[in-house]
C-alpha cells in the first residue's frame, strides 16, 4: 500500500519574493518504509514534512496534491490524522505538555476521548515497550534530554500511528542518547511496520537502515534512491552533502572506483578493507606517530587549573573531584566524556559562573580572584553556553551584537560588527530576529556575540550540537582562524569526530576528573570504543589512523 503520494507539490510562504520553499516535489512512500530526508539547512526538509500533516502545515500557497492512503490528505479529519500520523519535533522540552510522565503518555489518548480502561492499557504497553516503567511516576523536569525525547516518541506511539514523522529528533541530544533514540525508531519500524519519515544531520546512525534516501536541494528533490545509489550520486556530482555521509562510505569513495557495493556501516567498512588488502601487500601500515603529549612542558599556560573541587550544595555530591590541567596558548583544547559527568560545570567554574570550594584557576598565570571586577571579561575570557538561544536578548542579531561593542564612535562600532559578522559568516542574518535562523546559524551568531568581547580565551560548551556537516566544517574553519589569531579555545564536546579532526589536544573527562590528556592521534588510536568510526573500521590494519582522510591516504599509499 502507498501511504503518501506527493504529486507535483509546490509550496511558497506568503510575502516571499524569492523561490518557493518547495518546487515540483514528487514522492511516493509505501507502507513500512524507512525514508530518510537529508539536505543542507534551509533546503525545505521541515516544510516538506509539515505538509504531510494538515494541522502543522504552515501558511502559504500550495499547489499539487498530497494523497494519504489513496485519498487527499485534507479529507482525513483532525481526529484521524492525529491518531494515524505521529509527529515528533526537534526541541524535547517544548513538546511536553504536562508535568508528569504518565500524564504525558496519556495526553493524546485523552484528547481523542478514549475511556479509562483503554488508556490504562495503552499507557502500560508504551511504558514497557519503551522501558520507561522506572521513571513512570516522575516529574518531566527530572528527566534527561534523551529521556524527554523518548517520552515524546512514546506519547506519539501511544496513539498507534501508521506513519511516524520525525523532524531532526536528535539534534539536541548527545551522541549516545541520539543513537539510543534512533535505535528505538528503527525497532518500531521493524517490529510494528510503522512507516518512518525522518530528517537527520547524523546520517551515521540511520543511513544504512533506510529504504529510500531523499536528497533535498534548494526546495527541490535532487535524488531519491537506495542509500548506496544516493551515495554514488553525491560522489559523482561532488555534492555539498557528501560531507554528511557515514565515514565508511567516504573512505570507500576516496579509494575505490566501483560504486555498487559500498560499505555503509563500520563492520562492512572493516570487511571491505580486508578484501581490499587480501591480494595486496601492505607497504605502509601506520600513519606517522606523534610525539607523546607532555603537559609539564607547557611553560606559560593560558589557563591552569589545579585540584578543583566543586559541588552545588553543601550536602550534594562533588561534581568536580580534583580537576587539574594546563592549556597552551593559541591551541584548541577539547574535553570529551559522557553526559552528566560535570564537563559543563568545569567550564562554568573556569569563568566564574560556579564557585569551586577548593582549588585554583589561573588565567595567564594570575589567580582568577585577583582580577578586579569586569577585567576578566573585558578582553580575557568569554564563554559560549550550550544553548545559543540563551545569549540573545534583543530583537535583531545586529542589536544583540551592538550590545557588546566597545568602540568609541558609531563608525568604529559598525566596523567591529561588520568584521565579526564576516568572520562568522552571518552578514545576511544581521537584520533578522535571532530565533528566525536555523540551529547552525544561531550557533554562529552566538559565537559572534561572544567574540565581540575580544577574548584571549574562549570557552565553548557543546558548540557542534545540532549542526549539519556543512556548517560544522565552516565552524571548524572559524575556530582555526581564531587559533591563528592567538586565541586559546577550550571546547567541551561529545563529538568525537570533530575533536579528532580539529583539536590540538584531547582530554578524557570521567567521574569529575580528567583521566588522560593527549594529542588526538595518540588519544583516539589508543581507545577502542571511545574513538572515531574511521579508527574503528581500520584499526585492525592501520595504526594511528584516526580520521577518514588519513585512512584514505594510507590506502592510496598501498595501491
Amino acid at each position, binding site marked *: 500500500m502507498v501511504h503518501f503520494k506527493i504529486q507535483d507539490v509546490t509550496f511558497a510562504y506568503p510575502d516571499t519574493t524569492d523561490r518557493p520553499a518547495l518546487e515540483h516535489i514528487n514522492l511516493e512512500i509505501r507502507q513500512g518504509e524507512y525514508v530518510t530526508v537529508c539536505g543542507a539547512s534551509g533546503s525545505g526538509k521541515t516544510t516538506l514534512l509539515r505538509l504531510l500533516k494538515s494541522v502543522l502545515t504552515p501558511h502559504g500557497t500550495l499547489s499539487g496534491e498530497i494523497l494519504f492512503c489513496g485519498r487527499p490528505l485534507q479529507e482525513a479529519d483532525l481526529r484521524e490524522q492525529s491518531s494515524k500520523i505521529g509527529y515528533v519535533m526537534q526541541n524535547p*522540552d517544548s513538546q511536553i505538555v*504536562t508535568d508528569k510522565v504518565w*500524564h504525558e503518555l496519556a495526553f493524546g489518548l*485523552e*484528547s*481523542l476521548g478514549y475511556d479509562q480502561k483503554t488508556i490504562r492499557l495503552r499507557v502500560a504497553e508504551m511504558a514497557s515497550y519503551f522501558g520507561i516503567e522506572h521513571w513512570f511516576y516522575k516529574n518531566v523536569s527530572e528527566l534527561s534530554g534523551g529521556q524527554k525525547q523518548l517520552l515524546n516518541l512514546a506519547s506519539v506511539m501511544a*496513539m498507534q500511528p501508521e506513519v511516524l514523522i520525525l523532524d531532526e529528533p536528535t539534534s539536541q541530544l548527545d551522541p549516545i542518547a541520539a543513537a539510543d533514540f534512533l535505535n528505538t525508531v528503527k525497532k518500531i519500524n521493524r517490529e510494528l511496520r510503522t512507516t518512518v519519515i525522518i530528517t537527520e544531520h547524523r546520517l551515521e546512525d540511520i543511513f544504512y537502515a533506510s529504504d529510500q534516501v531523499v536528497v533535498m536541494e534548494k526546495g527541490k528533490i535532487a535524488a531519491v534512491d537506495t542509500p548506496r545509489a544516493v551515495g554514488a550520486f553525491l560522489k559523482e556530482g561532488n555534492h555539498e552533502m557528501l560531507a554528511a555521509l557515514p565515514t565508511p562510505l567516504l573512505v570507500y569513495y576516496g579509494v575505490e572506483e566501483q560504486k555498487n557495493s559500498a560499505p555503509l556501516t563500520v563492520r562492512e567498512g572493516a570487511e571491505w578493507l580486508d578484501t581490499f588488502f587480501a591480494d595486496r601487500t601492505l607497504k605502509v601500515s601506520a600513519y606517522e606517530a606523534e610525539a607523546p603529549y607532555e603537559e609539564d612542558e607547557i611553560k606559560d599556560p593560558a589557563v591552569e587549573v589545579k585540584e578543583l573541587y566543586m559541588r552545588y550544595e553543601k550536602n550534594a555530591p562533588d561534581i568536580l573531584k580534583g580537576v587539574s590541567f594546563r592549556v597552551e596558548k593559541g591551541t584548541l583544547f577539547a574535553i570529551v566524556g559522557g553526559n552528566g559527568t560535570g564537563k559543563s560545570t568545569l567550564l562554568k567554574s573556569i569563568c566564574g559562573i560556579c564557585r569551586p570550594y577548593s582549588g585554583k584557576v589561573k588565567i595567564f598565570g594570575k589567580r582568577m580572584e585577583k582580577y578586579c571586577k569586569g577585567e576578566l*571579561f573585558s578582553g580575557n575570557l568569554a564563554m559560549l553556553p550550550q544553548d545559543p538561544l540563551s545569549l540573545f*536578548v534583543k530583537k535583531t542579531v545586529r542589536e544583540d551584537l551592538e550590545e557588546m561593542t566597545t568602540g568609541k564612535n558609531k563608525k568604529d562600532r559598525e566596523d567591529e560588527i561588520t568584521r565579526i559578522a564576516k568572520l562568522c559568516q552571518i552578514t545576511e542574518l544581521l537584520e533578522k530576529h535571532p530565533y528566525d535562523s536555523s540551529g547552525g546559524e544561531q550557533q554562529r551568531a552566538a559565537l559572534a556575540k561572544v567574540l565581540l568581547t575580544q577574548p584571549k580565551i574562549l570557552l565553548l560548551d557543546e558548540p557542534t550540537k545540532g549542526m549539519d556537516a556543512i556548517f560544522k566544517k565552516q565552524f571548524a574553519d572559524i575556530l582555526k582562524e581564531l587559533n591563528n589569531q592567538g586565541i586559546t579555545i577550550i571546547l567541551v564536546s561529545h563529538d568525537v569526530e570533530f575533536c579528532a579532526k580539529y583539536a590540538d589536544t584531547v582530554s578524557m573527562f570521567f567521574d569529575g576528573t580528567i583521566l588522560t590528556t593527549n594529542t588526538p592521534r595518540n588519544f583516539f588510536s589508543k581507545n577502542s570504543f571511545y574513538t572515531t568510526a574511521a579508527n574503528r573500521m581500520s584499526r585492525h590494519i592501520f595504526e594511528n589512523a584516526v580520521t577518514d582522510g588519513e585512512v584514505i591516504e594510507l590506502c592510496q599509499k598501498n595501491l
Partner: protein
Amino acid sequence: MKHIFWQYHPVIHLIFYIGTVLSGMLFMHPAFLACSIIFSISCYMTVAKEKRRFLSGMLLVFLLLSVLNPVFNPSGSHVLFTYMAGRHYTLEALCYGMAMAAMFVTVLTWFASYQITMTSDKFLYCFSRLLPAVSMVLTMVLRFLPLYGRHLKKIADARKGIGKSAENGTLKERTEDGMLLVSALTSWALEGGMVTSSAMLSRGYGSGSRTSFCIYKWRGKEKCLLFAMLADIVLIVYCMIKGGAFVSYLPVLEIADLSDGYRMAGLIGYAAFLAIPTAAYVMEEIRWFILRYRM
C-alpha cells in the same frame, strides 16, 4: 517515606483533609482538641522528614498563644494573680487561650502534612472531573512555570559568561538588566509556546470531547475505608447537631462531661476518623514485623 495510606485513592485523602480541617476548626471541647492534636502530630510524624524543627516551632506557638491570651483578655471569674495596678490574669482566659492555641496548632499541622502528601497530580485529579478545562490549564502551569524559572537562570548564567551580568551594579543597572532578562524570557517562552501548541494539535487536542485519565483505581479495601470514613462523618455531624460541640470558656468554664451518649459517639467517631493514617502506618509496621519474624 509514604506509607500505605498515602498510596490510596486521592479522593480519600481529600475527604480526610476536608474532614479534619473543618472539624478541627469547629470543636473546642478539650477531649476533641486532645484527639486532634495527638493525631495530627502523629500523622505528621509518619510522613515528614524534618520533624524536630517544625514540632518545636509548633510547641512554641502553642505556649505563646496560651500564655498571652489572658494578657489581652482579662475577663473570667478565677483570678490567678493581678499585675500592672490590678489587671486580672484569669484561669478561664488561660484555658481559652490553650484551647485556641491547640486548634491553631492542629490546623497548621494538618496543612503541613497536606503539603507533603497531596502532590499536584492528586489534587488535580480530584478537580479534573469537576473542572476539566481548569485542571488542564493548571497542569500546564505546573509544567511551564518551573521550566521558565530554569531558563531564566540559564540566560543569567550566559550573560555572566560574557561579562554582562549586572549583579554588582547600581540599582538602575540591575533594573535594566532584569527587564532585559524578562523580555528575552518572553520571546523564548512565546517561541516554545508555538512548538507546544503544535505538539498539542498534532496529538489531537481539540478534536472532540476530552476524557481525563487517572492512574488511581478503587481497590476493595479502599471502598471499605471510604464507607467507614462516611460513617465516622455521620457520627460527628450527629454529635454537632445535638450540640456536642458546645463549650464555653468565658466568663465561666462550662465544659460538659462525656456522659451524654451523642457526645461520646461523636468523640469516638472523631478519634476513629483522625486516627486513620496513623493506624494504617502502625498496622503496616506490625505486619512487616510479623512477616520478617516468620522469615
